[in-house]
């Protein structure tokens, strides 16, 4: 169901380590997009911002409500995806590739390694009784 090469959080973000770097790419899962319904607005941090693991780095707004985006790792934002803020449909059509949100230069690789893998995340959703 969920791409095996990615790591996941309980707050439904995914994270991917760029090969041979200390850069982690972050987005939200297909499950999160479905739960949100129609997405109306996305607020991302600026490059250069320092963000902390488990703290909000941005906000996503559907017609239902506004939700925090929670960072899976600690580090500095080095790039944000300008494509999606103007084209939120990408989150629905391609949440794991074109729908990426930010790139973070991380300090501690263990933080990334300790995130859930795809099968654990799927188990977590099943436990909560949520469809995915």
């Amino acid at each position, binding site marked *: 169901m969920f791409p095996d090469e990615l790591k996941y959080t309980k707050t439904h973000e995914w994270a991917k380590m760029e090969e041979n770097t200390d850069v982690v790419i972050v987005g939200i899962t297909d499950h999160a997009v479905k739960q949100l319904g129609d997405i109306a607005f996305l607020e991302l941090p600026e490059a250069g911002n320092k963000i902390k693991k488990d703290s909000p780095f941005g906000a996503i707004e559907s017609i*239902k409500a506004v939700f925090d985006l929670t960072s899976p790792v600690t580090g500095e934002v080095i790039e944000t995806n300008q494509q999606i803020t103007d084209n939120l449909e990408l989150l629905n059509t391609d949440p794991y590739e074109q729908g990426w949100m930010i790139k973070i230069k991380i300090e501690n690789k263990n933080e990334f390694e300790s995130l859930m893998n795809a099968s654990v995340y799927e188990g977590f959703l099943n436990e909560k009784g949520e469809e995915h």
Partner: protein
Amino acid sequence: MRLIFEKSISGKRGVRFPERDVPSACNIPDGLKRKNYAELPEVSELDTVRHFTQLSQHNMGVDTNFYPLGSCTMKYNPKICEEAVLYKGLADLHPLIPQLPDGNKLTQGALQVLYETSQFLSEITGMAEFTMQPLAGAHGELTGTMMIAAYHASRGQKRKKVIIPDSAHGTNPASAAIAGYEVVSVPSNAEGVIDLDEFKKALDKETAAVMLTCPNTLGLFNTQIKKIADKTHEAGGLMYYDGANLNAILGKIRPGDIGFDIVHVNLHKTFGTPHGGGGPGAGPVGVKKNLVEFLPISRVVKKTDGTYALEYNYPSSIGYIAPFYGNFGVILKAYIYILLLGQKGLTRVAENSVLNANYIMKKLEPYYHLPYMRTCMHEFVISAVKQKKNGVRAVDIAKRLMDFGFHAPTVYFPLIVEEAIMIEPTETESKQTLDKFIDIMIKIAKEADENPKITKTAPHNLGISRLDEVKAAREPKLRWTK
């Protein structure tokens, strides 16, 4: 319905100016003159009256429809309160008069209203003193959090965290953040109230306060509340009571008696003053004795000779938080409401609001998923997860309700319940109205099973069909263009 701009006919007039009897002159500098015509609608007086009368007929309010908007306490607003605020001696009073030398003498009645309302609220909530100034609930929250900061600062402490459960109103974390605090969100447990173990983990010497609604936004009373208050006080923190749900406990429990130090009440919810478009609101804040010195100025005092005056000399006060003395008209309406009902009446408000909510909840239980199966207080939350299997969501049920003449309930809040529908009937609805609402909710549940298309495309009977909310949010068109 067409916009008034679309009804415009070139040359039509509503008003004719009298003929000029002085020489014409125009000294407006060229740079300030508009370059294009204002293009105001050209309509007759009768066109205008009909337009706005028709618009008003599209309104849905408590005076026209049942309005079970959860967490908003949309009760009936007694018309006698509306009448009293129009009395000339009160409506035409200039707000600066009490600040003039001897101005107190001319405003004793208004000052007495402010003083006595604050006394009533202190008695109802178990607080020592109230400020009547905050202009809305969230303004009350900000005033409260500023007093929390002032309290800790006076003790030489700079605590940085405020603990708030994940079921809270969004204004709670917003107010704490604006006051400069870091918000720590604590999850709810399977019973729908704040998880005690997680709460203890979050609580420490950096905790300035805990902000709670009780009953909470799921309409559930937290039976551990005293324990939470004791733990918070042991850690040196303060307990803040968000009075949004005070309707459920009026005359039964006083927040001050179960460990809360600061309370804001929403006069426009609990005390029957108009709400939303009919506002404005008012969010007076009460505090226990140890916080009185931080209350905003001015404060209304009763002197030994029985007269009332404004007092400004409180060096530890957080200062001015509102122009003048708050929304005086709203306070006056709440004052009359409290006098109308008295202690027994206010207690019956709580009893009947809780009874009405439980009555609907029990009747709907076979048809909708109830995430928390326990007796509720003044409101409850159902989930549309059963209906979602057929593609019918909370928003569709809300839209369909409007077809039958009901205002939609609150949907998708609190965030911890999937497809949440939050229903608060209030005490002012009759059993006949509740029964009609229940029948329609059951009909919609059946419809969602048998013919989901009807629900998904609702509303069908209103002047307007379903709006494209996503397009409106993504590409808002804020101006009319030809």
